[in-house]
């Protein structure tokens, strides 16, 4: 099982000090955070994409390539790549490039985006969000698998004799996850292609995530990719830890109370009860996270939200230390012991390459 962190790239004032990091500071910090994720033994770093303030990450491949150059093992991913408003040709090119530079340490998570004006800013219609996600991904999928592409669709200028370069590393396209909070069409899309499905998980009750994952698993099997429990599932999570749970609660409360998205709304206690947010001791985080398996089944990737709501860099790095030293080693062991042999791990470049070579040997 893979463990990692995902960042929404928000620039938020620290409510306890009033300090708002500059873009320069926050961008350098995210690199430090990603490198530290590798140092503490995490597997994945995923970065969001936004085209509006107060977010800095409009250009994820630049950031991810810079991180790739300074890490050895860390798998670089997105959370999410906007499949609706980006040109699928540019996604194909950018991420194939990143794949080469990072020696295959890259996968992507597709999302539709949640900021209304981004659609018109990029010349798109938000009412066509689902059809855009479907057409654009279908083209992206083709560009990475067919050398010369002739293509015509509704939302982009046609292509005649187009080759996306560079070609995917070893002719193995990056693995793709599809993220959606509430659209069954996206779970269906992930199932159709045999891709992964990632449930944001952190803003919605468990019962909702359970239904979406269940739908994806059933449809994954329907399209002949394996049994429902062999589908590739990822979950978000959100934690804040200190040795003593009361210290965690006390320290995190001002960040919770003022956070973008849920700040000034429900109490931290309500939100902790109704969503996967866990604020407490490392053991509480371990217990809660193991409990996710009870309602989504054996899954392949767990990402935690760590660097948000104005938390200072020092605190984020301490959280990563706790995660890497005390939480993830236990989770790895416990999840591995529970997982039946026929449930696959999340695909990586190495595993996809091995699969491709095995297939070629059979046909040769």
């Amino acid at each position, binding site marked *: 099982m893979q463990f990692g962190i995902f960042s929404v790239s928000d620039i938020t004032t620290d409510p306890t000090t009033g300090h708002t990091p500059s873009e320069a500071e926050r961008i350098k910090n995210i690199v430090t955070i990603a490198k530290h994720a590798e140092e503490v033994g995490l597997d994945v770093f995923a970065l969001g994409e936004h085209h509006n303030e107060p977010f800095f990450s409009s250009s994820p491949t630049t950031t991810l390539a810079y991180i790739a150059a300074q890490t050895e093992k860390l798998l670089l991913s997105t959370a999410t790549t906007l499949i609706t408003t980006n040109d699928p040709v540019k996604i194909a090119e950018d991420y194939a490039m990143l794949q080469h530079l990072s020696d295959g340490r890259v996968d992507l998570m597709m999302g539709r985006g949640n900021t209304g004006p981004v659609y018109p800013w990029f010349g798109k219609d938000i009412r066509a969000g*689902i*059809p855009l996600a*479907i*057409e654009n991904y*279908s083209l992206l999928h083709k560009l990475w698998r067919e050398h010369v592409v002739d293509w015509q669709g509704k939302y982009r200028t046609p292509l005649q004799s187009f080759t996306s370069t560079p070609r995917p590393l070893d002719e193995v396209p990056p693995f793709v996850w599809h993220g959606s909070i*509430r659209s*069954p*069409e996206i779970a*269906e*899309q992930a199932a*159709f292609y045999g891709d992964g499905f990632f449930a944001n998980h952190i*803003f*919605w*009750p468990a019962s*909702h995530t359970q*239904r*979406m994952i269940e*739908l994806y698993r059933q449809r994954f099997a329907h399209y002949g990719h394996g049994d429902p429990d062999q589908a590739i599932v990822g979950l978000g999570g959100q934690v804040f830890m200190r040795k003593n749970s009361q210290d965690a609660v006390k320290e995190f409360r001002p960040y919770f109370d003022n956070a973008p*998205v*849920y700040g*000034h*709304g*429900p109490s931290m206690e*309500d*939100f902790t009860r*109704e969503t996967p947010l866990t604020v407490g001791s490392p053991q509480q985080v371990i217990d809660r996270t193991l409990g996710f398996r009870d309602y989504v089944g054996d899954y392949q990737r767990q990402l935690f939200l760590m660097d948000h709501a104005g938390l200072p860099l020092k605190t984020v790095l301490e959280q990563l230390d706790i995660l890497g030293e005390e939480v993830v080693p236990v989770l790895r062991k416990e999840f591995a012991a529970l997982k039946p042999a026929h449930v696959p791990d999340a695909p990586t470049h190495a595993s996809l390459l091995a699969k491709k070579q095995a297939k070629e040997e059979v046909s040769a």
Partner: protein
Amino acid sequence: MKQRTLVVVSAGLSQPSSTRLLADQLSAAAVTAAAERGIELHVRTIELRDLAHDIMNHLLTGFPPVALKEALDAVAGADGLIAVSPIFTASYSGLFKSFFDVVDKDALADKPVLIAATAGTARHSLALEHALRPLFGYLRAVVVPTSVFAASDDWGADSSDGFLQTRIVRGATELATEIDRREPATVADPFALTVSFEDLLK
């Protein structure tokens, strides 16, 4: 007897409230009118005061807490709805509007609705027609012709056979008639796929 459900939404703030009093009279009259048509109405009354924090939290976080989710599901699955608000500053109360702001935009389509309101004096009565009726019109509900307004005076001078009671019975009878004309309400599964992926790809 046919079995149908009636959900009553009361946005009264005080406890006890005259809004709830009116809501209870309307639901009792609806039960009687429905029984005359061979329908057993199962009534569920939702006091929005109990859900006030949940409603605001839903607006802020984008998802309903458990108790609110259950109330929203009850509204969506109801065969008929009675919606009663106090009139504040020329319109429905903010709490009443906020609740219907988080009701799914399709949940009330073709659902029979009886609207009612309370206020200190009868001068506020047209708020039912210029505020509540268009709100439910937007939600594509079938709002029955009679709306029921109760000013403070109505609780005194008009006894049980007075004007208020006449309006209550008329509105409740119209609601029961609309419920009777329809098949039981069905709720669309938000996780159901309505088109095949092959069609979406075309």
